[in-house]
């Protein structure tokens, strides 16, 4: 029953004075004292609150501070917290109650960061009826925005907001009609945050770790490869400040995924770069993967720690606490090593050279054999080749096949997944979705199989390390042993489910799609060969 707020962004020809005049001539108005506003919007680096339809902002007025949680229209606060003692960073810091219940799961392990700061002046008009009752509030706001921590403010332009009063919808409709017909304004769905970001040349959701390329089939393969690599390089660079500051674990995760995708793209999109260029970067990118690994390992353990703990019977749970302390301490030292690596000339040089290479215009007459081929052909052939390999390797896996072969299969599956993600825009969306989904089932299964094993082995290694570094309670080692046991049992379960997961992937629907979507050389027909001999 509560009518939502309407937002309008005014074109530059409308000044505040002109607006006041136009409205004042048309409606009986009164005004409240002007208000100043200083506010900061918060979200996770990858916009989890915004994606969930939620906004969180801190408004400051003198000494008063309000932490306000609202919907995307910026008005009708769902909850407002006066003078919070400290600002929430992680989900457990959120004030308990509705805010924590709704925003906590959206944020998951990510930290809240200040996204944009706004300061503005608001003129508040009240439209009156013949009882001199307020039937609608009109807020005219002129503001400036800046990136938190930066010095320069950017003008946001003039915006207008209609704040309905309950039970006065006719009056609201009348004002809306006036704005549309007489002032030529269009309602815009987004509020202050979008306007503030626009002033900085940004927009909401401008970072995502997901790939969303739009290629056309006739594009040159080397140009497309460059575009993919540049996007991944941007992702790597965007995450570096968060990795260095250890803001949350997902900066490093996203960085590592982007590096992995880069390495995969380098080797899988074959024949588009000169061999010597490929060699120049391949090894150094592998080095990035290697030096970022230890910190990520610790992060994974810490993120999953509560889960580990809860997998033990209650009486043994507290025995794991020394492990947590150990992990925290070692995470910190690994993080320091990692920061040193990222600050090293080697790392910075790599990114710089890589960017220079990618941004240089593609050579006129490239030596690489497939550089000038159409991307649809190159991509289709490659996807089909990797698919074939997944099928051959997958079909050869039997109950007693060594674990290494499953790990190898996982690698092939990952290559296939990255290829499908890079090139999905070249194919019908629905069909690609079916393939990615089936592949995901298989990858999840192989991932579990390998991760449980790796984790179990790593736990054993950690136990040795803890013993070597000093006194560790026997109970802790026992509890860790129980964890290892649980992990190995879950690994076994994953193994048992493999056949079922692979059956989904190797089924008729999926194989038909691979055959029809991706051009490939027809297989020799064995039947015909046989007849000829």
């Amino acid at each position, binding site marked *: 029953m509560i009518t939502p707020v309407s937002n309008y962004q005014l074109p530059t020809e409308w000044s505040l004075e002109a607006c006041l005049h136009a409205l004042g001539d048309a409606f009986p108005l009164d005004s409240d004292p002007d208000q100043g506003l200083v506010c900061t919007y918060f979200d996770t680096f990858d916009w989890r609150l915004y994606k969930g339809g939620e906004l969180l902002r801190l408004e400051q007025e003198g000494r008063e501070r309000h932490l306000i949680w609202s919907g995307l229209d910026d008005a009708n606060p769902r909850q407002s917290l006066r003078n919070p003692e400290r600002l929430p960073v992680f989900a457990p810091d959120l004030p308990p109650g509705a805010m924590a219940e709704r925003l906590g799961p959206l944020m998951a392990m990510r930290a809240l960061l200040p996204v944009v700061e706004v300061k503005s002046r608001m003129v508040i008009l009240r439209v009156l009826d013949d*009882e*001199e*009752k307020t039937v609608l509030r009109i807020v005219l706001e002129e503001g400036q925005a800046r990136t938190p921590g930066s010095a320069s403010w950017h003008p946001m332009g003039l915006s207008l907001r209609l704040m*309905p009063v*309950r039970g006065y919808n006719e009056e609201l409709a009348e004002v809306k009609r006036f704005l549309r017909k007489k002032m030529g304004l269009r309602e815009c769905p987004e509020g202050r945050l979008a306007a503030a970001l626009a002033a900085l040349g940004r927009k909401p959701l401008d970072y995502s770790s997901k790939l969303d390329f739009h290629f056309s089939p006739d594009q040159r393969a080397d140009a497309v490869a460059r575009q993919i690599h540049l996007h991944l390089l941007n992702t790597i660079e965007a995450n570096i400040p968060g990795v260095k500051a250890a803001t949350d674990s997902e900066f490093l995760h996203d960085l590592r995924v982007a590096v992995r995708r880069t390495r995969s793209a380098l080797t899988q999109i074959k024949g588009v770069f000169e061999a010597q260029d490929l060699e120049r970067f391949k090894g150094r990118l592998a080095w990035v993967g290697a030096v970022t690994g230890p910190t990520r390992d610790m992060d994974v353990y810490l993120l999953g720690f509560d889960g580990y703990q809860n997998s033990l019977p209650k009486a043994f749970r507290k025995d794991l606490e020394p492990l947590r302390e150990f992990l925290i301490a070692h995470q910190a030292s690994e993080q320091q090593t990692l920061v040193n690596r990222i600050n090293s000339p080697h790392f910075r040089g790599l990114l710089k050279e890589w960017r220079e290479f990618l941004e240089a215009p593609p050579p006129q007459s490239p030596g690489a054999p497939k550089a000038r081929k159409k991307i649809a052909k190159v991509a289709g052939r490659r996807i089909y080749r990797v698919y074939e390999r997944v099928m051959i390797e997958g079909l050869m896996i039997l109950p007693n096949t060594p674990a290494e072969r499953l790990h190898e299969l996982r690698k092939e599956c990952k290559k296939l997944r990255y290829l499908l993600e890079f090139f999905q825009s070249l194919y019908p969306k629905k069909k690609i979705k079916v393939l990615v989904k089936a592949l995901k089932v298989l990858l999840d299964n192989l991932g579990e199989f390998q991760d449980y094993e790796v984790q179990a082995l790593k736990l054993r290694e950690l136990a040795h390390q803890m013993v070597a570094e000093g006194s560790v309670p026997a109970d802790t080692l026992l509890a860790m042993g129980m964890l290892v046991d649980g992990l190995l049992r879950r690994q076994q379960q994953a193994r048992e489910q493999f056949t079922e997961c692979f059956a989904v992937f190797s089924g008729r629907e999926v194989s038909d799609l691979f055959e029809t979507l991706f051009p490939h050389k027809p297989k020799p027909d064995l039947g015909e060969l046989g007849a000829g001999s």
Partner: protein
Amino acid sequence: MRIIGVYNIKGGVGKTAAAVNLAYLSAREGYRTLIWDLDPQAAATFYLRVKPEVKGGSREMIKRGNELDDHIKGSDFDNLDLLPADFSYRNMDLMLGEAKKPAKQLLRLLRPLSEQYDRIFLDCPPSISLVSENIFRAADGLLIPTIPTTLSLRTYRQLVEFLDGHRVNGVERMPFFSMVDRRKRMHLDMLEQLPGRYPELMKSFIPYASEVERMGIHRAPLSVYAARSVAGDAYERLWAEVKGRL
């Protein structure tokens, strides 16, 4: 959601002023607050500058049941809404009498609002009727403004007898002295003697004050135009005490 009835059998005892001022204080603290002006004289509606009309009147409301929502009007103040009075409310007794479970109709109407409001104030018409019985049964607390005179005390006793006689339990009785004139001997005597005899009597009282009467000129709660007045302070003290009792 808490429902607070403001009621007296007698009229002209400062009932509507109490309902509007206390509801305003509740809203100012951030509680989502609604006043339902059940008095066909529509004084609360007038104070909040809303037109006294409800589409379809009380007949439609009681017959159709769950449509209170459509009639609510936002006041000029944050968190404070009003369900305006309507002239048809003078016949509400008859409408209620025609319904099933006539004494529980208002509670049925109010229930769906529990998601939207933290506090609902009912500004009740004077006299004992089916409407007032409905209010007694719906309310968590009953504020009873009482002028400190012997006659007023008699009506309070009548009310108590009615509540006991109709087995209306579960409602917190909160009589308080209203329109207290310290120049009058009788008012002072009552102020001194009665708390001993009526332990439910609120400690805070509202003085007789011209700024309260001026609500009709300003058409706004007292705190809006005379925040630091004697009567304004008195309402704040009374509100603090009411919150403690609920």
